[in-house]
Structures are given as C-alpha cells and as structure tokens.
C-alpha cells in the first residue's frame, strides 16, 4: 500500500533527503529554500547532524567535510547564496567527493523575494557538475535518493535546483521508504584529491572533463528525461524543469500533435535531443530564465547539420526574464506557429490601491529608522542590506541594497570616495554574522568615518525565524553560546559601540547623535525582539488607543507608517486598530499626548 500526504515542495524535498539517507545537513536561510532545513530540524527521530551555518560558504564547507568523511551530505541555499559559496564549490568540482553531496540551490524566477534572477544551471555548466531540475514536487522528492547515488557513483558533487513554484508549491506526494542503514564515517587520506595544489589540480581538471560524457550518458537513461515522438508531428516542444509541465498542460488542452521532450538533468541528453531534431521541422524550447537548453540544442543541430527551425528565448518567442506559465507558453506558440489563440487579459474599470508588503505593526525596525532619519536628516546617505528591514525603504532610510553584508562596505566606499554628507548604514543581526563582520572589520581597519546600525531583532525574521549565533539556541532548539554583537564589534576595533532600545525614542536618538559626531566607525545596536517571535513566545503588551478629544488630526502618527494606525477622515482623528502590538512608539511621537495605553 502506498502512502500519500499533502505537503509543501520543500517538505517533500526534505522527505527525499531522508529517503536518500542524508547524514549531515547544513544551510543558510534564503527564500525559497529555508523550509528544507526547518523541516529536517523539526523531526523528533533525527539520526543526522543538522545546522544553520553563518553563511553559505561555511555551510558548503561543512557539508564538504562530511562528504569527504564518506557520508551523505546536503547543503541548502537560495540562488544568490551560491555566489557566496562559489569559491569552495568551483574547486570542489575538481576534488570531488566520497560520500554523496547535494547542493540544493533554489532559484527564484520573477524575484518573488530576491535581488536578482540568476539561473543556477549556469553555475552547473560553469563548474562542470551535473544539475537536477525537477518539474513537480513529487519528482523533486523522487530525484534526491537518485542524486545521492549519482554523486557517489561519479564521486562528484551535484546541484539540485528547485524553483519557487517547486519549493513553495504543494501537492499530494507518494512517500517512499526511509533507509535505516547508513555509511560509517571514515576520512580517507587521499592527498592528491583533497589538497588542491597546482600539481594535483591540473590532473583533476582533466579527470573532470573526462567524466562529462559518461555522466551525460547515465543521465540520458534516467527517468528524469523523456521523449514522446508523435508519428505525424511536424514540430516539437522541449520543456525543461517546471516549464515542461506548463507546456504539457497547454498542449493537452489544445489537443496539438507535437512531439515532446522533457528535460530534467544537465548536461542535457544529447541523444534524445538529436532523436527529436531528426523527426521535426521546427522546435519550440520552453525553459525558465537563461537559454541553457536552447544553446545546447542549437549546437547539436549545427553539428548534425539538421535544418530545423529552433525557437526559444533568442528571437523573442519566450521571455528571458520572469517566471513562465501556461499563458507564456500559449503566447510563444502563437508567435512561433501563428495559431489563433485568444488573448487572456481583461481590463477592469476600477483603480486599485497598491498593497506592498510592509514592516509589521510594532516592528522595532520602523522605530529605529524613524529615529535615524530624525537625527541624520534628509541629507544623509543610507546604505542598507538584505532582510525584512529592506522594507524600510518606505521610511526613507534604505538607499542601497546590493547583496548580503554589503551595506557596511558600500558605506565605506562612499566615504572613501569623498562623500561629505553623513553616512549611516543599516544591517540585520543575521546578515551581520553572515558577511557583515568582514565589512565592519574592513571599515574599522581602513578608518571609514561612518555609522553602522545593527538592527538586532534576535532572529533571522524574513525567511521564517531561523536562529543565528546571537540568539543562544541552535536549529534544534538546543542551548548554545549567545554571541555578543557589542563585544564582537569592540573586538574588531570599532571605537564607539552602544546597545539601545529602539522603542525608547529619546535613548536611541541620543545614541544616534553621539554616533553622528563620532570621528571613525561607530556602531549603534538597536536591540528589540521581532514582534512575530515575541507573539509566538506568548509575550503580550498592552495595546494603545487614540483619545479623540485630544487628537488634533496632525497625522504625525499616521506618517510614522505603522499598519495599525489609520486616519478617520470624517472625524479628522487618528485611529489605532486591533493590529496594535503595544510598542508605544506612536505615543512618544504624538505632541498632544493623545495616544495612551488601553486601561486594563
């Protein structure tokens, strides 16, 4: 009897890792990848080691250590995380592994919650390692045990690349067995493999190139690639990963006679592509992000001198940016084959108000930004970083966001370029531990006259509340050292370091004034737990209300931008809604003492 369960794609991926006998799991949180480690960590009957690492490079290296000890290891991250881990990863491809090693790197077409749309399949090509590209959550789960075996067979790390709609899609999933037997760890001292001196690296590069064809042949035989040739079809469709299911559904709906090649692994199955190209006049290639498959198909067609019309991203049939869907496939079909498919947009005679995500009601970052702006003023420059607090763009205190950890180094660069205005950058606690520390060290060492604000909300909030070295517990809830941000900053040589409560406007504004006047690198640590984790921990504050008698309708509190404060246009009076979390900052902003705690 089979067991079916309804689960999130990332939960299915975690299940796949269990079914593949994972022994060590590491990662750094990043949407859409975070729930994989969260799910594995939440299991009661754990027989594997698991950690949230401080960044992706470290996470990768811990997983490599495990795989070199001969056990099955996984490291998870989002696409931009692989940029951080690229240094070990590129050389790891040469050295290879003993135990199976899967790097799960989740891509985010359309930037649902990311700063770019890079395609991890390019990294796989670049590093010469295979890549698995699942088309459904079920396939994602089923692919993982296979990927471990494949990695061990060829002694090479593999990339597994889900996209947002796989990671955050849900589906009924047929479960498999979880093995109980696992390899015993044993580090084999293969110095010509694990020591990448030039003398060892050169032959490993030759070796890596020599296994490309055998890997491709093995993948072509795998269940993740499939070719359906229709005897009378004059054109074919090639779909890669999740895009293949959109194409398949549209073809079924239209009842079109087209041959169909589904690709789920890289290097691409050249044999299957050639087989398709030999039977059709034209092919449409449907894949998300970069034209990775398309470029390969064109090379194959040219090498075999096949006069097939090849359509995809080049030529503008399929968009090169953004997420694909069934409509995008229909549009591409329309353009490629002049079919008459009706357009699917409609106009609505209503003006809708935009509803962008915002900092939560009572979020301490809003209070910090408010005070920062008060003290540093409109003229100052505000580099920032990646996290919930990037939403502080609405407070006018987020003026740059490049990549994790960059706020402090960008601020330094602005200063050293000769920028004369005050510079105050902001970075979250987790991001500071991730790669902000290096930047602070550099700022201090090279004497940047800037203010660094660490927004310490005691958690990695944006990705779903994962612990970091500052919170005092690990991924499994075990107690551990609580690293002091203040001591760390002092140890790195920052001349002025203060810890303040952002809910206390007077206190934090005094701290900002002192930091602004300080010659050198000053640090203000605004410490107040995330309102969501506080609520989950059962901490309740008394909410606030507006006294309509005292309210003058000046809207100062409304301008603060808290979602719990609305303005009643009829009575020209501010109103605090049920969303209020009781931080009390608006009461300090009000000049007329019209905001007070609800009396119990």
């Amino acid at each position, binding site marked *: 009897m089979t067991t*079916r*369960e*309804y689960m999130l794609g990332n939960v299915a991926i975690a299940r796949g890792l269990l079914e593949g006998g994972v022994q060590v799991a590491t990662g750094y949180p990043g*949407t*859409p990848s975070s729930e994989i480690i969260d799910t594995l960590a939440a299991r009661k009957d754990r027989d594997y080691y698991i950690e949230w690492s401080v960044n992706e490079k470290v996470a990768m290296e811990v997983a490599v250590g495990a795989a070199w000890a001969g056990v099955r290891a996984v490291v998870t991250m989002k696409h931009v995380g692989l940029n951080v881990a690229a240094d070990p990863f590129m050389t790891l491809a040469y050295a290879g592994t003993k135990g199976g090693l899967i790097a799960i790197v989740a891509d985010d077409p359309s930037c*649902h*919650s990311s700063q770019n749309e890079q395609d991890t399949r390019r990294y796989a090509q670049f590093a010469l390692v295979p890549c698995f590209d699942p088309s*459904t959550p079920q396939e994602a789960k089923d692919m993982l045990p296979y990927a471990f075996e494949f990695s061990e067979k060829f002694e090479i790390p593999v990339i597994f690349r889900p996209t947002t*709609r796989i990671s*955050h*899609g*849900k*589906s*009924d999933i047929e479960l498999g067995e979880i093995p109980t037997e696992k390899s015993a760890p044993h580090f084999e001292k293969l110095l010509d493999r694990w020591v990448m001196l030039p003398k060892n690296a050169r032959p490993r590069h030759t070796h890596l190139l020599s296994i490309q064809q055998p890997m491709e042949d093995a993948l072509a035989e795998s269940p993740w690639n499939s070719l359906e040739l229709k005897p009378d079809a004059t054109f074919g469709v090639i779909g890669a990963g*999740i895009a293949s*299911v*959109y194409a*398949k*559904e*549209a073809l*079924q709906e239209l009842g079109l006679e087209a041959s169909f090649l589904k690709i789920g692994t890289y290097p691409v199955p050249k044999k299957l592509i050639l087989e398709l190209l030999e039977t059709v006049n034209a092919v449409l290639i449907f894949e998300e992000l970069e034209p990775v498959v398309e470029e390969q198909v064109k090379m194959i067609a040219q090498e075999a001198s096949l006069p097939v019309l090849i359509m995809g991203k080049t030529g503008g049939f399929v968009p090169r940016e953004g997420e694909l*869907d*069934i*409509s995008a496939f229909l549009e591409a079909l329309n353009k490629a084959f002049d079919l008459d498919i009706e357009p*699917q*947009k*409609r106009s*609505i*005679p*209503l*003006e*809708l*108000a*935009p*509803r*962008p*995500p*915002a*900092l*939560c009601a009572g979020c301490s970052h809003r209070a910090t930004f408010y005070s920062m702006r008060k003290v540093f003023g409109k003229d100052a420059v505000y580099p920032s970083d990646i996290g*919930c607090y*990037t*939403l502080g763009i*609405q407070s006018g205190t987020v003026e740059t966001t490049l990549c994790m950890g960059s706020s402090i180094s960008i601020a330094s660069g602005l200063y050293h370029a000769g920028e004369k205005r005050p510079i105050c950058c902001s970075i979250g606690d987790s991001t500071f531990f991730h790669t902000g520390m290096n930047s602070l060290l550099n700022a201090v060492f090279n004497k940047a006259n800037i203010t660094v604000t660490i927004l310490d909300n005691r958690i990695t909030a*944006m*990705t779903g509340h994962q612990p970091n070295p500052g919170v005092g517990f690990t991924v499994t809830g075990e107690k551990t050292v609580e690293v002091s941000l203040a001591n760390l900053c002092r140890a790195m040589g920052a001349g002025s370091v203060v810890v303040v409560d952002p809910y206390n406007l007077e206190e934090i504004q005094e701290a900002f004034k002192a930091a602004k006047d300080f010659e050198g690198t000053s640090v203000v640590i605004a410490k107040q737990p995330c309102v969501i984790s506080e609520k989950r921990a059962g901490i309740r504050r008394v909410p606030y209300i507006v006294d309509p008698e005292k309210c003058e309708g000046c809207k100062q509190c*409304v*301008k603060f*931008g808290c*979602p719990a*404060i*609305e*303005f009643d246009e009829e009575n020209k009076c501010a109103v605090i809604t049920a969303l209020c979390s009781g931080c009390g900052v608006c009461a300090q902003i009000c000049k007329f003492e019209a905001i007070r705690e609800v009396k119990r």
Partner: protein
Amino acid sequence: MSQIEGEKKLDLLITGVGGQGAILASDIIGKAAVVSGLPIRAAETHGMAQRGGSVVNHIRLGTDLGSMIPKKGADVLLALEPMEAVRYLDFLKDGGVIIVNTQPIIPVTVTSGLAKYPDVQEILDVLSEKYIVKAFNADELASEAGSRLAMNVAMVGAVSGYLPIPKEILIESVKALVPQKTIEINVRAFEMGRRKVEES
C-alpha cells in the same frame, strides 16, 4: 492517476492579504482532497511578500500537472478581502463564481494618502456585471461564531459547496488543522459560511 472524471476537476484561486490565513484555508482543502483521493496541486505566496502584502493561492483539484492556474482558468475565486478580489480577476473564467468577504483591509498606501481605496459597493457592482458574486462580511460572521480569527475557515465553508469534496471530509480537515482549543469555533464558522452561500 491521469484519468480524472470531468466533474472532479476544479481550479480555485484564494486571494487576500498576508496574515489573513489564506495558507491555512488552502491547506484545509488540500488535506481534504488527499483524504478523498483527489490529486491536488497548489501554489502559495511566502517570504517578504506575506508581510501585509497582497497574497494569492492557487488550488487545482483533479490535476496532476502544474500548480499554476492558467489565466481565465479558475472556476471559483475566493477573496478574503474585497479589493484583492479584483486584483487577480485575470485568472477567473468568464461567468465564474466569486465569493467575497466585504470587510476591507486598508493598505498603508491608502492610510498614508498615496492612493485611494475603491468603494466596496462599486467593487461588487463591477464584479456582478460579468460574474456570479456571493458577498458577505465574513469577519462579522466569524465573530458571531466566536472569533474573528476564524474568518478564513468561514470562507472555506462558504466555498465548500462548490468543491468536489464531501463536506464531512472538509470538516475533519478543519478539525485536524486549527488549534485544538478553537475547533468548536472553527467548525461553527465553517457551517455558518456554508449556509450563507447556500441561502443566497
């Protein structure tokens, strides 16, 4: 699994605002679908976008391909907030059904004076021109059931009559997924939501 009876196939879009419980609503339906033996695919909004932002969930019952509903493909639109009913209309079939909670949530863009919130009655009038609209205040209904927080479950009750899943299985799913001490309130909210649509 690929042979699915026509009447067992349904594409449902749930729209709302981050924090309203759209994910729980879709989970109730998803879990019930698996229990009743229907293949199900769903897609939801996570991460930064859920912090008070506009959210949309796709639920596809009786499908074994992708989780994304094609444009003009949804049979039913369940809107937990009136303005959010309009934002994703492209996905609804011509003549499709819209079940809408009439309680607005004012976005920060409106409170800060950057935009205007459209008149709720005007929204309903525009929607009624092309679609079958079932509108009621689900927040008030949930309050009557015992807690405003049960609004999402009241809305699942409201859409339950359109789903190819027996009511009893849906209620079991509600019981399995809501916090233990709120089961009674949520089941009541479900029943009240269902009745509201049956009567209209």
